[in-house]
C-alpha cells in the first residue's frame, strides 16, 4: 500500500495540472450532486414538516356573497368521509388600502385577505412552526411580504380607506400551508377577532373559504362532485390539497431540479473527461505497462496500480463535494426554509447528498475500471510498439498552391487527422454554450412583452382588475369612461370573468373560469383553431383541453344559472394564469356573477407605462392596476428570480468548465504531440507558430461547438422550456433570443476565456525539445 501511495504521489507531482483540473471537475460534480440533493432533502423535509404542523386543508372552495350555513352543516354531517370542516371568514382588503412605510401594496398582484386563527386545522404558523397567536392591535404578516418588502416584527401596517385608518403592529411572520408560495395569488394576514370585526365595519369585502379534511383514502374528487351536486356555495376558485402541494413543489422544487440537472450534465462531463484522461495517460504509459507485463507483473496488480490514483481522487472529491454542499445547499434552500421551516425530517438533507456522492463515486470508479481493464488487454508487443495508437491517425495533404496561411493550413490538417481526440472537448464546449444560453433565452422569453400570449391574452401594456366592491358596475364604468377620454391610451378592451360549470369526460360537472370580451382588440395566437366568434363557440386553454381530452370541433356542455348550453370548441390557446385552466366564450354573465372585470390597455407611443400606471392608480383607486411586465413576473412567482440566479451561475460554471477543460486538454495534447512540436521547432517553426496552431485547432472546435450549442439552446431549449411550462399551461413556447448577447457577447466571452487559456496553456510548447525525442 505504501508503495502504491508513493506511486500516486509521484504521479501527482508529474501531472500536477491535469490531476488538479480533474480533481476540480470531480469536486464541482460532487458539489452539485450533493448540493442539489441537499436542497431536495431540505425541501421535502420542510414541506412535510409544514404539512404535518399546519394540517393544510385537503379541499378548499372560495365563495363570495351570501350562503346558507345550515345547509353547509347538514352537508358535512351527512357525509361520513368528511373528517373535519370549517368556514373561514376572510376579509379581502384592496391592495390600495394596505400601507407599509407610506406605500400601498398596489404593485403586488396578490389578493390580500385578513383572517383569525383557525381552530381545527389549516393553521397559520409562526417562524418557529408553532400555531401563531396575535393580540388585539397586532398582525401576522405572510412570509411572502416579509421577503418582498422586508417587513419585520415591530413594523406597522396601516389599513386605510376614506377617513378610516387603523394601525396594526407586526407581531409575527406567518407561514401558510395553503397560500405560502408566490405562485398562489392570495395571501392571508392574521389578526385578532376584535380587529377583524372592527375592520369589517369599515373596509373590505367578505370572502369565505369552505375547507375540508377527509378520512384516509377518500379522493377529493368524491367530495368535489358531492359538493357541487348539493349546490353548496361555490362561486370562486376551488383548490385541492394536491394542487397546493404542486404549487409548492413548483415554487421550491425548481431550484433543486435545476441544480440536479446541472450536476447530471457535470457528472457526464467529468466522466467523459476522466475517460479521456485515463485513455491518454494510459497511452503514454503503454510502454511501461508492456514492460511490466513482460516481466510477469500480474495483470490485477497493474490494474490496481493505475486505479488507485483515480480512486483516491474521487474519494477526495466526494468528501470535499459533500462538505462544500452544506453551505451551497443551505444557500439555495434558504427560501424554502424561510417559507416552510426546517421540517421534521432533517436527516434527509444529510443522507440524500451522501447517497448522491456515493453513487457518483461508484459511477466514476466503475468507468475507471472498465477503461483500464480494456486497455490492459493489449498484448505486450502491441503495448511496447504502441501499434494501436499509430494505426488510428491518417494524414492530410498540403495544398498544391503552397502555404499561404501556414498555421491555419497545418492546424486544420492536423485537426482533420486527430478529430477523434477533440470529440470530448467539443462536447463540453457545446454543453457549456448550451448551459449559458438556455437560462438566458428563457429569461428573455419571459421578460419579452410577447410572453403575454402565454397568459391567455394578446400583447398589451397594462392590466386593470376591477374587483372588491358592491359597486362593481359603477367602478367598471368609471374606468372605461376615463380610458375612453384619455388621449394617451391607444386602445383597451374589457373582459368579464366568471365561473360556469362544464361537463367533463366522466359527465361530472366542474367549475371553469370563462372570460368574455372582444378577442380582436388584443389578438391572441392560438395553438389550434381560432378565437370564438359567436355565441355558440368556446375556446379552451391548453391545460383544460388536454386534461379533459377535448379537441377543436368537439362539443362542450356548459351550465350557467341552471341552464345547459352547448358550445363547440373553436380553438385552444396557452394560458398560465389561474392554474392554466380557463376558457373564452360569449357568456352573458349577470353583474352579480362577474368575479372580476379585467381591462387590458395599450398606451400610445412615447407614453411611459410606469407613469401611466401611477396615474391610473391615483385616479381609479378601487382597481388593481399592474404593468404587464410586473404581472408576468409576479404570476411566475419565484421562477424569474430562480432563472436570474441560474443564469448567473450557469455563466460562471460554464466559463470555469471551459477553462478547466482547455487547460487539461492542452496539457494532454501537447504531451502527446511533443514529438511533432520538437520536429516543427527543429525545422524552423517558431514557438509562436506552434502555439497558434494549437489555438486555431481549439478555437475552431469551439466555434463549431458554440454554433451547435446555440442551435440546441434555441431548439432543444424550446422543448425543455415548453416541458417546464406545460404543467402551468403553456406547451409551445417560442424562444425569444437577444441576438447581441446570445450571438455576440456570450460567444465572444467564451472564446476569450479559451483564447486566454490557450495563451497560458501552450507556454509548455517551449519545453519540448528534439533532444528528448532521441533515444541514444
Amino acid at each position, binding site marked *: 500500500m505504501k508503495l502504491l501511495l508513493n506511486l500516486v504521489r509521484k504521479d501527482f507531482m508529474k501531472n500536477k495540472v491535469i490531476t488538479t483540473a480533474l480533481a476540480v471537475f470531480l469536486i464541482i460534480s460532487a458539489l452539485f450532486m450533493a448540493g442539489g440533493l441537499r436542497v431536495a432533502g431540505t425541501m421535502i423535509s420542510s414541506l412535510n414538516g409544514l404539512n404535518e404542523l399546519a394540517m393544510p386543508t385537503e379541499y378548499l372552495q372560495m365563495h363570495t356573497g351570501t350562503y346558507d350555513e345550515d345547509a353547509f352543516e347538514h352537508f358535512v354531517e351527512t357525509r361520513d368521509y368528511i373528517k373535519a370542516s370549517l368556514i373561514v371568514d376572510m376579509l379581502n382588503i384592496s391592495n390600495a388600502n394596505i400601507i407599509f412605510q407610506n406605500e400601498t401594496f398596489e404593485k403586488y398582484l396578490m389578493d390580500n385577505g385578513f383572517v383569525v386563527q383557525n381552530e381545527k386545522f389549516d393553521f397559520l404558523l409562526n417562524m418557529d412552526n408553532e400555531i401563531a397567536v396575535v393580540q388585539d392591535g397586532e398582525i401576522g404578516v405572510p412570509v411572502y411580504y416579509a421577503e418582498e418588502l422586508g417587513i419585520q416584527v415591530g413594523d406597522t401596517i396601516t389599513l386605510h380607506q376614506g377617513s378610516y385608518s387603523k394601525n396594526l403592529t407586526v407581531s409575527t411572520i406567518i407561514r401558510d400551508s395553503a397560500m405560502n408560495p408566490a405562485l398562489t395569488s392570495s395571501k392571508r394576514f392574521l389578526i385578532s377577532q376584535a380587529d377583524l370585526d372592527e375592520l369589517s365595519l369599515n373596509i373590505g369585502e367578505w370572502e369565505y373559504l369552505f375547507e375540508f379534511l377527509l378520512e384516509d383514502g377518500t379522493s377529493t374528487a368524491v367530495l368535489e362532485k358531492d359538493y357541487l351536486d348539493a349546490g353548496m356555495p361555490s362561486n370562486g376558485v376551488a383548490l385541492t390539497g394536491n394542487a397546493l402541494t404542486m404549487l409548492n413543489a413548483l415554487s421550491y422544487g425548481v431550484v433543486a431540479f435545476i441544480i440536479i440537472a446541472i450536476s447530471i450534465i457535470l457528472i457526464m462531463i467529468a466522466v467523459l473527461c476522466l475517460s479521456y484522461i485515463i485513455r491518454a495517460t494510459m497511452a503514454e504509459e503503454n510502454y511501461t505497462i508492456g514492460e511490466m507485463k513482460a516481466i510477469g507483473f500480474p495483470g490485477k496488480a497493474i490494474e490496481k496500480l493505475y486505479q488507485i490514483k483515480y480512486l483516491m481522487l474521487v474519494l477526495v472529491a466526494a468528501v470535499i463535494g459533500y462538505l462544500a454542499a452544506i453551505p451551497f445547499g443551505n444557500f439555495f434552500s434558504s427560501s424554502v426554509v424561510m417559507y416552510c421551516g426546517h421540517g421534521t425530517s432533517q436527516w434527509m438533507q444529510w443522507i440524500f447528498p451522501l447517497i448522491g456522492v456515493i453513487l457518483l463515486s461508484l459511477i466514476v470508479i466503475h468507468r475507471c475500471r472498465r477503461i483500464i481493464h480494456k486497455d490492459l488487454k493489449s498484448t505486450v508487443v502491441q503495448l511496447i510498439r504502441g501499434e494501436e495508437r499509430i494505426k488510428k*491517425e491518417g494524414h492530410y495533404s498540403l495544398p498544391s498552391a503552397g502555404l499561404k496561411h501556414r498555421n491555419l493550413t497545418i492546424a486544420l490538417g492536423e485537426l482533420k487527422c486527430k478529430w477523434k481526440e477533440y470529440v470530448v472537448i467539443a462536447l463540453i464546449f457545446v454543453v457549456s454554450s448550451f448551459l449559458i444560453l438556455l437560462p438566458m433565452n428563457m429569461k428573455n422569453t419571459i421578460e419579452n412583452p410577447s410572453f403575454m400570449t402565454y397568459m391567455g391574452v394578446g400583447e398589451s401594456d397594462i392590466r386593470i382588475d376591477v374587483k372588491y366592491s358592491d359597486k362593481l358596475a359603477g367602478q367598471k364604468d368609471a374606468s372605461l369612461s376615463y380610458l375612453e377620454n384619455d388621449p394617451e391610451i391607444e386602445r383597451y378592451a374589457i373582459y368579464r370573468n366568471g365561473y360556469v360549470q362544464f361537463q367533463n369526460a366522466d359527465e361530472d360537472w366542474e367549475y371553469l373560469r370563462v372570460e368574455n370580451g372582444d378577442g380582436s382588440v388584443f389578438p391572441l395566437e392560438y395553438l389550434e383553431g381560432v378565437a370564438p366568434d359567436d355565441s355558440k363557440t368556446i375556446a379552451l386553454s391548453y391545460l383544460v383541453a388536454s386534461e379533459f381530452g377535448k379537441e377543436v370541433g368537439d362539443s362542450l356542455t356548459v351550465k350557467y344559472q341552471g341552464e345547459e348550453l352547448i358550445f363547440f370548441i373553436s380553438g385552444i390557446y396557452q394560458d398560465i394564469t389561474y392554474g392554466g385552466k380557463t376558457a373564452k366564450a360569449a357568456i352573458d354573465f349577470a353583474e352579480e356573477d362577474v368575479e372580476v372585470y379585467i381591462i387590458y390597455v395599450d398606451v400610445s407611443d412615447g407614453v411611459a407605462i410606469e407613469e401611466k400606471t401611477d396615474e391610473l392608480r391615483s385616479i381609479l383607486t378601487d382597481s388593481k392596476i399592474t404593468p404587464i411586465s410586473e404581472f408576468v413576473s409576479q404570476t411566475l412567482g419565484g421562477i424569474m428570480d430562480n432563472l436570474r440566479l441560474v443564469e448567473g451561475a450557469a455563466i460562471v460554471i460554464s466559463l470555469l468548465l471551459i477553462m478547466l477543460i482547455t487547460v487539461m486538454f492542452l496539457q494532454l495534447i501537447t504531451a502527446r504531440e511533443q514529438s511533432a512540436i520538437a520536429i516543427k521547432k527543429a525545422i524552423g517553426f517558431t514557438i509562436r507558430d506552434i502555439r497558434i496552431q494549437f489555438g486555431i485547432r481549439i478555437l475552431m472546435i469551439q466555434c463549431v461547438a458554440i454554433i451547435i450549442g446555440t442551435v440546441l439552446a434555441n431548439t432543444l431549449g424550446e422543448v425543455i422550456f415548453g416541458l417546464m411550462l406545460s404543467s402551468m399551461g403553456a406547451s409551445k413556447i417560442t424562444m425569444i433570443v437577444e441576438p447581441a448577447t446570445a450571438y455576440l457577447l456570450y460567444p465572444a466571452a467564451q472564446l476569450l476565456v479559451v483564447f486566454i487559456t490557450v495563451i497560458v496553456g501552450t507556454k509548455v510548447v517551449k519545453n519540448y*525539445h528534439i533532444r528528448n525525442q532521441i*533515444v541514444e
Partner: protein
Amino acid sequence: MIKVKKISKSFKDTLVLHGMSFEIEKGEFVAVMGPSGSGKSTLLYSISGMDSLSDGKVLFEGINISEMPEAELSEFRLTKMGFVFQNAQMLKNLTVFDNITLPGLVAKKESADTIKKRAAELMKRMEITGIEERDIREVSGGQLQRASICRAMINNPDILFLDEPTGALNSGATDQVLAILEDLNRDGMTIMTITHNPHVAAQARKVIYIRDGQVASSKEFQTGVDREKELNDWLRGFQPKAANEECTH
C-alpha cells in the same frame, strides 16, 4: 563559416559544455565524436541555435546567432540550416513528400512548384522515388532517413547538421546514407555530424573528439589515406588504459 567561441552550456547544476571553441569552414565535413554523455548532441543543438547558451557565442558567417531572438533564429534555421536526426523525426500526419516540402513551403522563398520540383529531384537523387504519397509508417527506416535528408536539403541550406544519422539503420542503409552525404559534400555542402560510429566519422575530413564537455582533440585527414584505419588508431588514444589493456589481452 561557423566560429564557436568558448561556449558553455549547463542544465541546472550540470555543466555539459565547458568553454568549447573550434571552427567549421565552408564546404567542410566535420564529425564530432566522444563517449556517451560527453555533450555531443548538446554541442550540435547549441551551435544550431536550438538550445540557448549559458556562455560564449556562435558566429554563423559573422552573425552572432547566440543572441538572436527566437523567431529570427527559427527563420534562420529554416532557411540556412538543414537537420537530420537519429530516428528520422517526421510529422506523422503528413505523407513522405509533404514532410519533405514542408520547410520549403513554410520558408516561401521560392514558388510551390519550384519546391516540389526540387523535392522530386532530391528524392530521385536519394533513390527513394515511388514512396511520395506513402504514410511515414509505411516505409523502411533507411528510406525514411534518406527522406529526412531530402527535407533537410529542401531550402538549399548552407550547412547540414546530422545527429547520429545512421544510429537506427542497418549496415546496408547506413552505407546508402553515407554515400549520399559524401556526394552532397562533394557538391560543396558543409556538413557537421554527431556520431559514435567510426565508419560514419571516417566520411568526414575533420573529426573533433570531445570529452567532459571540452574538445579533447581534433584530426584532419589527408586525402588518399585509409581514413577508417587512421581514425581507429587515433581513437584508440582516447580509450581508458585499463580498457586498452583488456582489449590487447
